[in-house]
């Protein structure tokens, strides 16, 4: 199963919002994946296929074995759909 991490500074609020919207986008596309939300330091030591996060935090995840990509507007389903299309579906 594909594993995706949504990551924020504390792993409490914003990563959970992103997880909800990413899961919705994946469902609509019919992509099956295990989506987990976590904080940036825990994420560094976790295995995953993809990490989705903000621009600020992406820098501190450079060098992670997962493919890291950025979403700027966590509430813009269009942007989230495009990001998934570009990085996961292609």
């Amino acid at each position: 199963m594909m594993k995706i991490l949504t990551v924020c500074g504390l792993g409490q609020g914003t990563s959970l919002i992103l997880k909800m919207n990413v899961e919705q986008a994946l469902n609509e596309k019919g992509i099956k994946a295990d989506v987990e939300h976590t904080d940036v330091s825990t994420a560094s030591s976790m295995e995953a296929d993809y990490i989705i996060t903000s621009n600020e935090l992406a820098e501190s995840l450079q060098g992670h074995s997962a493919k890291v990509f950025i979403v700027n507007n966590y509430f813009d389903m269009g942007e989230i759909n495009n990001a998934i299309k570009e990085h996961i579906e292609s």
Partner: protein
Amino acid sequence: MRFLEPDIVKIGVEAADAESAIEAAGNLLLQEGLVEESYIEAMKEAYRKNGPYFVLAPHIAIPHARPEDGVNEASVSLIQLKEPIVFGHIMNDPVQIVFGLGASSSDEHLILLKKLTGLLNDTTNVEKLSNATSYDEIKNILEMER
């Protein structure tokens, strides 16, 4: 669980910088006993340490900390800034609306985030919240979402 009731919403707030805007949103929660003073400190500390990643969409900031930093009840406050403030986000600056999120470890936390996501996934709501001049206008926006 508290979500944008009249006493935790304030319109036309003046703030000098990002930290005082975070403090203003946190103070609404503090006044109602929903969080402790330590939680507001932790929100500001998270901003200093991790930067403005919680500016999640254009003009929208959702500062928060961890439940153990001093949350008494899952809650969301709102301040609408009189003048937009730069938080330092590469794409989403300047911030006009700050939601103070009192993060709890209960299921209510998830319910609040779902409500917030439902509200903000509609971009016209962001504009309406930015332009609202009274609580009644905000109440109308919230009722449309139900």
